[in-house]
Each structure stands twice: as C-alpha cells, then as structure tokens.
C-alpha cells in the first residue's frame, strides 16, 4: 500500500526539554491512526510538525506533498466572517453547499460563528478541513470540549466521510473510546520525553458502537497498557 507519511528518527527539543524522542512511524494511505498518550507527551507537537507548522529538531518527516485538512482543538473560525465565507477562505472554489449539507449545517451558511453552538462550530471546523479535499485529515483533540452525544454524532460523520473518501486520518486524543471508535491503529506514547511504546491494531470494521463487546475488550486491553505505563512512571 502507498505511504501517506513517513517519520524517521524524529526528535523535537524545546531548549533543554526533549519532547519527541526518536519517533519512527510509517502510515499508509487511507489508514486511520490515533495517538494516545498523557498530557505533555508531544502529541500536538507531532501534528504541528507533520502539517508543516513546526520544524523538527532532527530527523525526517515526509508527508509526500499531500493536501492536509486540520481540525483544530478550538474551532479557529474568523469571528466576523459568515460560515460560508469561513469555508471559502481556505478554498475559494470549494463546494461549500455540499459539505455543509453533508455535515448537517444547511441553512447556517450566513450565520456568524458566534451564533452557533460549540458542537456546530466544531462541525464547521471539520467542514473547513474537508472543503480542501484533503488527502490527510488531522484531528487535534477535536472533540475534547464536546459532550458525548455531539462527540458521537461528529465521529459518526467522520467515519461515514472516511468510508466515502478514504482519506488518511491522524488524530490525537486522551479518550480511549474516541480512539477505538475512529482508529485502525492506536499508537501509545510514554510520558515526556515521549517515545512510541506500543501499537494496537483495531480490526473492528467500519460500523462501530461504543458498547460493542469487541470494542470493550480492546478498551480493557488499552486500559491495562495505560495503567502499566503510569505504574512505570
């Protein structure tokens, strides 16, 4: 399978602080990878490096000049621009109607971000990432501020869109269920200086439910691993 991202001997330092410590990773096109790790483990730093917002201290990151859609933790919408104009800001020729319709935001084109709820703003954040027709969709704790119902609904939308478009997804989260719902591969990180310590395959098929026994089984496996990391720390 064609590669979407290759990371080789990646290090990131902030002064004397080592954040990313020798990361090696290959992600194939169309894969869904979620990074799971404690706060301060450099998850967001990693996303910023692969999207070109930050430079690595050393090592190689090759994202093969792909189009990137980034769903930020906070929506980062232009407050004085309508929802439609927020989408067209990143892609003037994008089909905003189709994307808003797909994410159940039809009728809100002319609203300002301040007129929308938190969940709706996050949908617009996702819509803005999708209007660029990305090859790689990055989710930076995109649902952490949402309640479970809204979170589940947006994640279902992402799963559906992934089934239709098969873009690559790389996400970070603290939430095990979120990771299990979205990922084919879960990478578990140690605390800082963070290293990749474990990888888990999630072969659950596209239709997932938070309460399915298979999902719960992998969740308990994940909890054991996370607890053992905490104990080592």
């Amino acid at each position, binding site marked *: 399978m064609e590669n979407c991202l290759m990371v080789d001997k990646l290090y990131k330092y902030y002064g004397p602080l080592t954040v990313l410590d020798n990361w090696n990773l290959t992600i194939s096109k169309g894969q869904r990878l979620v990074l799971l790790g404690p706060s301060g483990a450099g998850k967001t730093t990693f996303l910023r490096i692969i*999207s*070109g*917002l930050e430079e690595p201290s050393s090592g190689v990151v090759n994202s093969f000049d792909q189009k*990137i859609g*980034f769903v*930020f933790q*906070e929506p*980062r919408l*232009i*407050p*004085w*621009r*309508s929802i439609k*104009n927020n989408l067209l*800001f*990143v*892609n003037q020729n994008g089909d905003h109607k189709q994307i808003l319709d797909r994410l159940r935001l039809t009728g809100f084109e*002319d609203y300002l971000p301040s007129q929308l709820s938190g969940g709706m703003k996050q949908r617009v954040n996702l819509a*803005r990432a999708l209007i*660029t027709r990305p090859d790689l969709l990055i989710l930076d704790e995109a649902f952490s501020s949402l309640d479970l119902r809204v979170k589940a609904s947006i994640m279902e939308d992402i799963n559906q869109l992934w089934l239709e478009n098969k873009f690559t997804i790389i996400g970070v989260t603290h939430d095990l269920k979120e990771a299990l719902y979205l990922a084919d591969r879960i990478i578990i990180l140690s605390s800082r200086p963070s290293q990749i310590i474990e990888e888990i395959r999630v072969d659950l098929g596209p239709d997932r439910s938070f309460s399915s026994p298979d999902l719960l089984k992998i969740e308990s496996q994940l909890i054991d691993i996370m607890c053992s990391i905490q104990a080592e720390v």
Partner: protein
Amino acid sequence: MKSFFRGFVGIILFILIWQLLAMMVNKSIVPAPVETLRLLAEFLFSAQIVLAAWETAWKVFLSLLLVMFIGMPAGVFLGLSDTLYDMFRPIIMVIQAVPVISWLSLVIFAWGIGWKGPVFIAFLSLLPISILTTVSGVRNLDKNLLEMARLYKVPRSKIWKDIYLGSLLPFIAAILDVSIGQAWKVILVAEYLSGGSGLGVEILRMRMNIDFPGVWALTLIAILLGITTERIIKLVLGRLSHQWKIA
C-alpha cells in the same frame, strides 16, 4: 426609545443648568439659552458663517484623512515589527508630548497664516493616537487565525482582507471616535491663534468685538458640526463594514 428619552431629559437638564448659570453670572459672559439659540439660527443663514464652517469642516476632514492614510498604515508596520516599534516609539512620545501651542509657533514661522498650519497641527495631535491604537490592534490579532491561514496556504492578500482588516476594524472605529472631536477642537484653536479663515477666526472676531453670545453661538455650531461629522463617519463606516462582512 428608552435611551432617546433619557438623552432628551439630559438635554433639558443641560439647558436648565445653562439658564441658571445665565441668571447667576453676568449675562454678557453667559448669555441665556434662548438668546444664544436665536443668534445660532441667525448665523445658520449668514453666508459668512456658513462659509467659515465649511472652511473648518474641510480642514477637519483633511486632517482625518491624513491620519487614516498615514497614521494607520504606520501603526500596522510598527505593530508587525518590534524593531521598528522600538525605534519610532520615542519619536511618537515626543510628538504626543509637544503642546499644540509650540507646534503653532513653529507652523506660523514655517507657513505663515493659512490652512496648512491648522491641518498640520491637527494631524500631528492625532497621529500618536492613531499609530498607537493601530499597533494595539495588530498586536491583539488572533495568532491562531494566522496559523490556520498559513496551514491552508491562503494567499497573503486574502489574509490581509479577511483577518487583518477584520481585526483592525474595531480599532479604526475607536480611532475615528476619539479623533473626530479632537480634530474639531484642535483646528478651531489653531484657526483662532494662527488666523486664516474658519470658525476659529470667527470666534476670534466675536471676542474682539466683545460679542460673547456670538462666541457661544459659534461654539454651539462647532459642537453640532462635530456631532454631525461623527454620526456621518460612523454611519459610513458601519455601512462599509457591513458590506465587507457580507462580501
């Protein structure tokens, strides 16, 4: 409706206090409101006063335009570069601290009597406010929005139009808010002291004729023109900002 009523009550209260003052102080110094308003109505039909008001008004507009087209872009550059800001801040502070009267002495030497002096002095008085307010606007810009634009490789012209201009609009409105009243005051003082033409010169003429009701009536004209200019500029700015938002 409630605020209109409150404003109306405020005006009535102001006129009552004025009337009381007129009754207490020498009438030739503080004339009664009725007398001043009668004189004001008379002035509104006087070609000389209307021409003087026009002379002052265009000087105000010119100084505001200079502030907008020189002060604000300068503020943007200084806001974007700490080096430039550190270099120019002392100069701005000096301009801010120099009293109007000192500028006046200088411009009378340089240009003599005429329109250039009042416009230049008003421009210099407003320049520091416009530069420093614009610097604050640029520095308060949401860096996350700029980062988002960088990630999506949005063209620079679009970033300026959609992010910078949008962030600066409230600051531009604030600059105009402060500048309009200030411009009228400074131009009137400059006209009064350095002559030429305009309402300031007319106030000087009335004073020399010991016509205090005339001074008061001209002052009222200046206040009304100041308020009207502020309203017109705010209306135009509001319309432009609305059109820009839905564009």
